[in-house]
């Protein structure tokens, strides 16, 4: 044992087999391989999605391995087909997009409307039950959605709200408000208190201070939070499935794609065009705001 250790230290010093050099070399080779592999695995499905959306079903079946599409084979009819309203023989994605947009934008607007004052209160004001409120929000954050889905399903069936976008928006707001408050209050906490005190001395009351001082300073946080809520609402599936499935006119894009992908009548390539339509807005938003968003995603997680 000791002999081996001594031997190892001597070889390291003498520079014969050098563990350090070996490891450095190994990682120098492994690192680019790992990066390329990860990149391929992350991006390839999306490339494949776009690729298939430009092909016809016939060419896909004839040559499933092709990873590019030649110009003369390029087929744009998939997009026209998937977007066109059902009455014109299409799949009606244009209506789904409208629904998704309505739901997502209303969720963003309503959530910010309730979360801005809420987060300000939680971060700044000492009111009765503040700790309990924070605890409640934390619990909401981790609750199994499927447990919530059962009573909501019963309730919406009872009052006949199934198929209504309004009901869906209320559920979404209740789900994201807690997360929103958690993110936003961290930003409010970074706004120097002295600024608010100065405003108070200048004669602003509490709401004016919030409106004129804290809010503009928290603007980047608000924007990233809004984008984040938009993405959640746009991507959401379970509640949309439970509440909207019976009424095709109120399907969201997510729901529409999942429902149609079950049927054999709609060609896969047409649905791939639908997937692109569903994914593209999110990817554009993501890359446009990546810096903001990544900051927002990790904000508050930094204590660890």
């Amino acid at each position, binding site marked *: 044992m000791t002999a081996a250790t001594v031997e190892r230290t001597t070889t390291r010093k003498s520079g014969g087999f050098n563990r350090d050099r070996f490891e450095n070399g190994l990682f120098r080779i492994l690192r680019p391989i790992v990066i390329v592999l990860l990149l391929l695995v992350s991006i390839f499905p*999306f490339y494949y999605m776009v690729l298939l959306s430009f092909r016809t079903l016939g060419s896909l079946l004839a040559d499933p391995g092709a990873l590019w599409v030649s110009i003369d084979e390029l087929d744009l009819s998939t997009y026209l087909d998937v977007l066109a309203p059902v009455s014109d023989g299409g799949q009606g994605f244009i209506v789904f997009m409208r629904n998704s947009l309505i739901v997502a934008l209303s969720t963003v607007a309503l959530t910010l409307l309730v979360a801005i004052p809420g987060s300000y209160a939680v971060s700044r004001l000492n009111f009765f039950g503040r700790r309990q409120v*924070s605890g409640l929000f934390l619990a909401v954050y981790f609750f199994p959605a499927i447990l919530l889905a*059962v009573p909501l399903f019963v309730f919406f069936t009872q009052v006949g709200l199934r198929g209504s976008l309004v009901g869906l928006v209320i559920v979404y707001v209740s789900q994201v408000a807690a997360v929103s408050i958690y993110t936003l209050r961290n930003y409010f906490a970074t706004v120097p208190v002295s600024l608010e005190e100065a405003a108070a001395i200048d004669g602003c009351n509490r709401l004016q201070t919030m409106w004129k001082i804290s809010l503009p300073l928290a603007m980047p946080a608000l924007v990233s939070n809004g984008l984040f809520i938009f993405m959640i609402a746009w991507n959401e599936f379970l509640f949309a499935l*439970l509440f909207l499935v019976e009424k095709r006119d109120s399907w969201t894009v997510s729901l529409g794609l999942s429902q149609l992908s079950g049927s054999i009548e709609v060609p896969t390539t047409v649905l791939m065009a639908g997937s692109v339509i569903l994914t593209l807005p999110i990817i554009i938003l993501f890359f446009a705001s990546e810096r903001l968003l990544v900051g927002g995603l990790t904000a508050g*997680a*930094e204590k660890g």
Partner: protein
Amino acid sequence: MTQLAGGSDLSGPPPIPSDEEDVRAGEHLAPARRRGKSRHSREENRTGLFLISPTLIIITVAVVIPILWAVALAFQNVRLINIRGTGFIGEYTLDNFIEVLTSPGFLQALWTTIVYSVCGTALAIGIGLIAALALRKPFRGRGLIRASLLLPYVAPVVAATFVWSTLLNPQYGWVNWFGTTVLGWEDPVAFLSQRSLPVDIFGLQIDLPIALITVILFEAWRSFPFAFLFLTARLQAVPEVLDEAARIDGATPSQRFWHILWPQLLPTIAVLTVLRFIWTFNNFDDIYLLTGGGAGTEVVAVRVFDYMTARGDIGAAAAQALVLAAILAVLVTVYLRLFGREEEQA
């Protein structure tokens, strides 16, 4: 927010440990003010309650009351057909729980859920860690690569599951084309609809639960960016000096990782484990969309959904969901007890 953020997985910052600090940040105003005039503190109390009340009302109406109701439903004999007259009060009975806990399907689903969450969480964090380490040193285009690695996480779950089920399709999926023409598979593999796949490894016949493995790998693919993001942020906060000092002392890269980085990353990994486990445990979307719960991939969340919609047995659905939530709570508590203490000692 579980399914919305956890499921579609664009979850915000885990609101975990920052609690105390923030409370303090706000509180240091409060005592000063309280000392002076209590009228001010009363005004503060009123404004605070006023500002928080819209959120509280929405959460009470759409989350708290429904959950209480779910508990009430679990103890009643409710079916979709007699749903109209159902309320909080009814004939309470334990039938649902007896039915659920004694049916073999539930225990099977529970086991699948646990396997799925443990493997999915471990893989996601493992891959995320490798990615974070590989992209630690800056180089040209690193920002773009980092952003691209987040794509699986931000993309809508319905689109991601759809493109993967097409990729894995036995007839025209690219993966099966690649397997049969390049890798020399004898037959295409029905990744998502085949319960087990006999594989010959060094002469040993092993039945791989192929559909379950596929959904676990999908889960890893979809959520590794989340771990990657947090570990990258944590790595950036590790002081450069430590690494430098260890290097001068002759520590090799793997030694530097185990003795310098790993202890610093451990708390983040612990938090990630809890978060990912909770979300994977509750996950409905991915499995429902990929396999519909067939071929040995039925997790409890999917089973609840089937009871509720296909069978119309609301009471049993609520009971299963309740058991799911309770088990999750127990597991998370045990974990926090075990590892929370260990960390404090370290």
